[in-house]
Each structure stands twice: as C-alpha cells, then as structure tokens.
C-alpha cells in the first residue's frame, strides 16, 4: 500500500469517499509525521493530533451513514497560526499572544472544518507574518526539509511568512495548509519548498479572525502540492462574509471542475521589467522553461510592460508597515495577551514594557517605519505618495491585461537561502519579495508552482498573475506549467 502521507487533497478526498482507507488512519499517519519531524523542522507551534482524529472520525461516521462528504472530507490540514482557532492557542508566532486562546473561530478555518477538514496543528510563521524566511518567529526558526546538493548541511529557510506551511507540505507533514499572503507570504515559501500556493483576489477569503498585518493587502489562500489541490481547498476557503467589509460579494466558482491546462487562444504576458540586471541564471532559465511550456500548451506569448515595477517594493514597505503600526496598537497589555507591569509602573510604562517584551525586532522595525511614515510632516511625502504609486501599479496591470490573459514571472529572485544569511540586512531580505509584491499591491490573484530544481538541487517557483477575480485563469495556467514541469522532486528525509 502507498504511503498515505504522499497523498494530496483530491486523492484523500476520493480515497476516503471510496473506502480505500479511513480518514482516521490517514489522520494518524500525518499525526505521526508531524510528531516525528517537530524537533528537526519546528514547522508547528503546537500540534493538535486529537483535533485531526476527531474530524476524521466524524467524516468516517458520516460516510458510514451514507451521507455526502464535504469538499475537504477527511483531509487533515495544517493551520497557519495567524488564523484564530476556537480555544486553541493562536499566537501569530509572537510572545505577545503566547497562551492566547480565542473564544472564536476565523471564518476561513470554520469554512474548512465545515467542508470536512481536520486540524493537525497550528503552523509556525514569521512573527505577525512579517518576514521572508520564518526567522522572526518567537517560537524559533522553521527549518526547510530541503538541503543543497553540494554535500553541505546548511539549514535553509523555508521562506516566509508561511514557512511552517511550506516546510510541512514539503516534508509530508500535511497534504495541505492555509497560508496568508500580504506581499508574497504564500508564493515565496511555496517557491522555496517545491510546493504550490495561490493568493486569490483580495477579498475572496474573509479576513475575519485572521490576525491582521496590513489590512489592505492581507489575503488568505491555500498551499498544497498540486494545482488541483489548491483549487479544491480555495473553493472551501473562499466566499462572501458579511463580517468583513472588504469581502467580495461574488459567488465562489467551481474552480476544480473547470481546471484545464489547455492554453489555446490564451495570451501570456512576459513583463520586461521583471528581467532585472543580474537575475539569477537558474531563475532566468526556469522562466524561459515556463515560457516554452505555456507555448507548448497553446498559448501565445507577448511581451508586456509594467513600468512602475521598480517602485513596488518601496511602496509596499510604506503601506504595509503604516497599516501594521496601527493594526498592532491593540496589543497593549490591557485586555489580553502579554502584560508586563513593572513595579510602580503607570499606564505608559506598562505599554512600553509590554510592547518591548512582546514584539520581536522585525515587528518593532516595521511599527517604527509605519509610525514614521504616518507622522505629521511625513505623511504626504510617504504615505500619500505611496498610495498614488500603488494606483499606478494597479493601472500598469490593468493596461497589461488588455494585451494578455495572464502574466508569467519568477516567484522569487533566488532559491532558498541559508538561515542567518540575510538576517542582518533587512533590505536584502525585503528584496525576496520584489516579484511578489506588485500583484499584492494591485490585489490580483497570483500563484506559485514548482518549475524545477536549480544547480544546487533546490526548487524554483514560477509565478502566474491573473486578472482580478480570474482565479480560474491563474489555476489553468498553473496547471499547464505543472503538467509540463513534471516536478516530482522531494527533499530527502534527514529528520
């Protein structure tokens, strides 16, 4: 019998429904992998094996009663620890929220449970989703299961902020996981680990109950090991939510049913501004491979221009920290979470002590940047200007999409880097998101699919960016790439 933990969402759903195995035995197999890898990979902040088994048993019972199973019936998943889960510790990987047990369930996680999924545990991430390497978590680094093929044993970054999600997927600790993407936090970790993830159009998935980083950018999405699995899971996660004013009031399409890798009649745009000087050779090559594959799938390739691309990163690093500086003001030690109350402290002292102890250096850096760009005298020069540039970036895409249906680009400028390599240089770290951020600023759907391995044997991802609301176009182009890339590599188990 095949190893159950190699199975993806569709296979599990069909296998459980068809009686090939029970949901409980499958959940237990994943629970075992989670437990075995925890010390080495640190992908989870907490494991919840009993939750996984409980949901699986419910699915099995439903099947026994002859009832129809949900879209995610019998599929155990990892839940990024940014989603509030009822009575289960929800930390955003921060000391601030250590021990915090929400008495509510995020809309997205509730929808997944309603669709029959079960929870293997809460996945590690960069603190408050701020980071590109999962090195800012209060609960320690996540170690990528991948190793370079140079014989060295350097610990590699799984990407961030959804680094727990990506590492767990690559290491077969779960068949699917939730991610959130503010400026690449689904796509870049997927690219680093040879996994697949889609950030849908802004507003597709409710933000209610997701710890906020930058409200106008935050968007939840699925991460899995195939395009089809992402489509299934996205259907379960998406949908209008009256509790989120920015939620899209649109029906959720049946993306899985309409999946097709046939690109005949489709135009694929190649943005010339993404072909930056000194682009990594392997990344450039994988991009060329992608172009060839989509051509092979029947697409016409057109060169497009996104002239404001070079301003995207600075724009992002004004808007996201500005929003974060305000969103994180609620962590003040008054009502929940950490309170540091030194002897004789007044209210101001308590704020200072609590926030000094509760936030890590990267979070503090962004709060400071955000506070600065919103402050009197600097607001217009930074924040207002950034909003204008953001509008221009969105306009770039709108004009490009008059000439093409989807855009193909690399997901990240390099493969996974070693832990610690970029921690002393925030700017270098931020550059990881240079290809991911423009689509975030424009609120567009974008996904990363594995394209192959670089010369060091590490995965590289290709990014497909689509028109607003056209997740189908993105998934279909992603499928065309997946069918041709034939990416079957997986990390050799060392943990």
């Amino acid at each position: 019998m095949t190893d159950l933990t190699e199975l993806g969402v569709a296979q599990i759903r069909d296998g459980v429904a068809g009686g090939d195995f029970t949901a409980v035995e499958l959940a237990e197999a994943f629970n075992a992998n989670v437990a075995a890898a925890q010390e080495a990979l640190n992908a989870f902040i907490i494991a919840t094996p009993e939750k996984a088994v409980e949901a699986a048993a419910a699915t099995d019972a439903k099947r026994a009663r002859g009832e129809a199973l949900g879209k995610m019936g019998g599929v155990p998943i990892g839940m990024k620890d940014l989603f509030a889960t009822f009575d289960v510790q929800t930390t955003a990987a921060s000391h601030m929220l250590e021990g915090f047990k929400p008495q509510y369930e995020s809309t997205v996680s509730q929808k997944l449970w309603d669709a029959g999924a079960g929870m293997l545990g809460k996945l590690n991430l960069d603190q408050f989703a701020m980071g590109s390497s999962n090195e800012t978590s209060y609960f320690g680094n996540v170690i990528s299961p991948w190793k370079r093929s140079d014989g060295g044993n350097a610990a590699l970054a799984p990407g961030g902020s959804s680094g727990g999600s990506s590492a767990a997927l690559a290491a077969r600790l779960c068949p699917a996981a939730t991610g959130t993407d503010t400026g690449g936090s689904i796509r870049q970790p997927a690219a680093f680990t040879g996994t697949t993830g889609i950030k849908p159009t802004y507003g597709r998935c409710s933000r209610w109950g997701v710890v906020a980083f930058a409200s106008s950018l935050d968007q939840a999405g699925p991460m899995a090991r195939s395009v089809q699995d992402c489509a299934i899971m996205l259907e379960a996660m998406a949908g209008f939510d009256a509790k989120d004013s920015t939620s899209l009031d649109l029906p959720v399409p049946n993306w899985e049913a309409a999946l097709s890798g046939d690109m005949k009649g489709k135009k694929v745009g190649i943005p010339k501004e993404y072909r930056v000087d000194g682009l990594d050779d392997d990344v450039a090559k994988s991009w060329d491979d992608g172009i060839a594959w989509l051509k092979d799938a029947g697409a016409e390739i057109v060169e497009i221009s996104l002239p404001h691309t070079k301003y995207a990163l600075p724009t992002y690093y004004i808007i996201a920290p500005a929003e974060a500086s305000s969103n994180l003001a609620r962590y003040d030690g008054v009502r929940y979470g950490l309170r540091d109350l030194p002897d004789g402290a007044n209210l101001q002292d308590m704020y200072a002590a609590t926030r000094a102890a509760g936030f890590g250096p990267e979070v503090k850096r962004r709060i400071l940047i955000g506070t600065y760009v919103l402050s009197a005298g600097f607001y217009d020069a930074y924040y207002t200007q950034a909003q204008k540039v953001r509008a221009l970036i969105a306009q770039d895409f709108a004009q490009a999409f008059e000439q093409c249906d989807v855009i193909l680009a690399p997901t990240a400028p390099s493969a996974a880097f070693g832990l610690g390599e970029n921690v002393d240089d925030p700017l270098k770290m931020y550059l990881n998101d240079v290809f991911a951020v423009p689509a975030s600023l424009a609120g567009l759907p974008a996904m990363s699919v594995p394209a192959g391995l670089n010369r060091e044997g590490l995965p590289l991802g290709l990014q497909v960016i689509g028109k607003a609301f056209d997740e189908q176009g993105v998934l279909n182009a992603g499928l065309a790439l997946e069918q041709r890339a034939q990416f079957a590599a997986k990390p050799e188990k060392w943990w």
Partner: protein
Amino acid sequence: MTESTYRIQGATGDWEVVIGLEVHAQVTSNSKLFSSSATAFGAEPNSQVSLIDAAMPGMLPVPNRECIRQAVRTGMAIEAQINKWSRFDRKNYFYADLPQGYQISQLYHPLVGEGSLTIEADEKAGIPADKVIGIERIHVEQDAGKLMHDQHPTMSYVDLNRSGVALMEIVSRPDMTSPAEAGAYVAKLRQILRYVGSCDGNMDQGSMRCDVNVSVRKPGEPFGTRTETKNVNSVRFVMQTIEHEASRQVDVLESGGKIVQETRLFDPTTGSTRSMRSKEDAHDYRYFPDPDLLPLELDDAFLEECRASLPELPDAKRARYVGELGLSAYNAAVLTADVETFAWFEALLAETASAQDKAPADVAKQAANWLISEFFGALNKLGKSLEDSPISHEQAAELLALVGKGTISGSIAKQVLETMFETGDNAGAIVEREGLKQESDTGAIEAKVDEILAANADKVAQYKDGKVALFGFFVGQTMKAMAGKGNPQVVNEILKAKLG
C-alpha cells in the same frame, strides 16, 4: 445683521469674543457604529462589549446602516451638504479606554458638509436679532470606553460599554460672539437633534457634550489664539466656560502675556477652566484611511428615504403655528420647544377640534392658551412633567369642549381640572356629579340680576352717574349669587341691558 454687543471690558478697552463649538452627539441606535453590541445607558460594566469592541485579534468593523442614516438625517435637518462619498480614517493614540489603539473617525472626507442653523433673537439675553450660525461639518466616529479610578486603591478599571458607540461630531463655524449665542446654539442644536430623533440630547448622561473653542480680539482685529475646553456637559456650563475663559484670556493679554493654544478642562464646582495639555504635548494622531473599511457610498434611494423620514422641524413648525393656527409667537415658541410638548399639543388639538366639530385652526388658540396657562401650571404645582401627566389628551379635550360649548365657564374649568388631577375622572362626569353646569337660561339670570340691582340701589345710582367701573361689581355679585355657574356672557348682556 445686527451684531451682538457682548464685550469684555478690559483695562485697555473692549474685547470681542469668538466662539466655535464642537458638539459630540451620541447617535440614537440600538447597536454600536461597527458592532452589534447594545448601547443602553447605565448597563453593568462590560456587559455590552463584543469581540470587535474589545479589539480582539482579527476582528473587523462593519458599518451600522442605522448610525449612518441618523447622521445623514441630522445633516439634512441643518440643510447641510450630504456627501455621497465619504470615508473613515483611523485616529491613532494609546489609552486604556481605546481598545483598538485608534478611534475610527472621519478626518479627510466627512459624511456631512457645510450647513447651518438659526438662533432666535432674544433681547433679554443680548441676542438682538435672529442669527445664522454656520456648521462646517458633521462626521461620525466611535466613542471610547470609560476608566474608573475609584474602584481600587492602586488600579484603574476599564468599562468598554461605551467603546464603539456611534457619535456625531458637529463642528460649528467660529460664528458665535457671546455666551448667550453659544448657549442658544447648543439649545437649538439639541432641539433639532431631538426632533430628528438622532440623539436624545441628554447632556447629563453624556450623550451630548461640547468642546468649546474660545479666543478674544480687539474689534476689527484678526482672530486671536484659541483654547479648547473639552467635554462641557450642559448649556449653562458652556456659557460659564466662555465667560471664564474669555476674561482669563483678556487678563493674560492685558498683563503682557500670550495665549497658548491648549486643551483645557472646565471645573463645574468653581466655574473655571484649567490647562490639561498644551499644543507641544499634543498627540500626533497619524490619521490615515481605515484599510478595514471601504469608502461609504450612499445611493439616491437611501438619501430619499432619509429625507422622507424627516419630521417637521422646529423653525417650520413654529412658523406654521403662527401662520396657520394663529398662535402668538410666544405660544408657538413654548409649544415647539421640545418634542413632548408639541406632540401633546398636536394630539390635544386634534381631539379638541373633533370634540367640538371645528377646524383645528378654530380651536388652536383655546387649546394653546389652556395648555400653557392652565395645564402646565397645574402640572407644575404637582411637580409633574407632561410624560407623567395624570390625565390624557382625550380627557383634556373633553374638558375644553365643555368650555367651548358653553357648558362650563373657564373658571369652573380650573376647578374641574383640579378634580380630574385628583381623581382621574372625566370632565363630563365631574361636572354632572358636582352640578357645575353653567346657567345660560336668561329668565333665571334676569331674576338674580334684578335681586342684585334692587339690593344695591345706591351703587346703581352711582353707576348711572358715570362710575362705570362698578359694572364689574355687579357681575361679581351676580356670579356669586349663582355660585359661579352663570354664563358670564349672558350675565354681561343682561346687566348691560338693565343698567341702560
């Protein structure tokens, strides 16, 4: 326009006062601006707090349509521009009563733009003529919670019941130049809010509070530096604040000092203001558009519904009472002063007209005069207000009909009203039971008149010699002889005829 002559007399001459008011009015609605929590006053601490109000991680605001509707209706009532596109901004600062660490407000694009209201001339108060006071804007925002410092020796407690309740901030132009004008403005604004039903206007419960901006200048000079006195919670205190603050500023300026732009607090026990924080300590609120909320866009149907739901407003009602009902300006002002009064009057008027089978305009004066001079007086004596009146307007209308039809006289009606208050019985039943029906039979009255004239032959002679003032004496004697029940009109006619 006739300007106010209010001046502060300083050692160096007269000073003018310039006043602008920011009124925070709590929106009447069942739930908060961005959450479904209740808004009732005086509930147990922290019993009306949702996850959103407590700013739990991942919680998001959703605008409450009713709060927006009330603010739009208020804007329409002051004939203001309604902005079909507005937006919410975050005002960032840390305080323990502010769970989000920011207040959701509207700085850049308020819901309601330029409007105005008119304060009426009041010679006695020093307002020589009607005056239009400009209103710059109304925006909606969240209220904060409340800190309680008296519950524990070393700690403060937080009550979040008020956190997130919807407020309208109504910002006037600096158009007021005397404490009386400012007082009249607040009273008029409160009256309009109560008519519209968008705020209960209860200043003692904090559902309406004023930030008072005051500066002084020599006539003809540009505006001086202003101070802002926060959270003043009665019309009288607003006036006191201005009086105190204006003379304090004059004292400072005349002794060579400078006015510091600062926030001050009013102390009701001393009637004075004191400094709270200066501009240098002012927060940098880092306003920016709230990314959790989309811009607020209002469609025509919504605006039409808001407009259609507006009641007749105070100025229009007062004009109608004078123009259509023929009431005096004074009576019209009294009867339109607040919602309870005009509601009572209009109900009474309808009942009275139908009880006497007349048009409302034909009985309006009777009803108005009786309500103001008899009924309010009687209520006052009992220490009761209209809401807890012992009799209904139907009962009052029956009493007025008895007077109108000549069944009882006005003076008997007073007596009947007293009995109604005591017993709750209907007027007709009391008149019947106590035999108070007026005597209109000319024969019976003539007989009494003849008796009186015969018994007072000397006075009749004096009257005929020209001492016409004695007429009243004869009326009084006749009425007395008839135990007050003679129809005064008939008595007059017969006396006139007999005395020649």
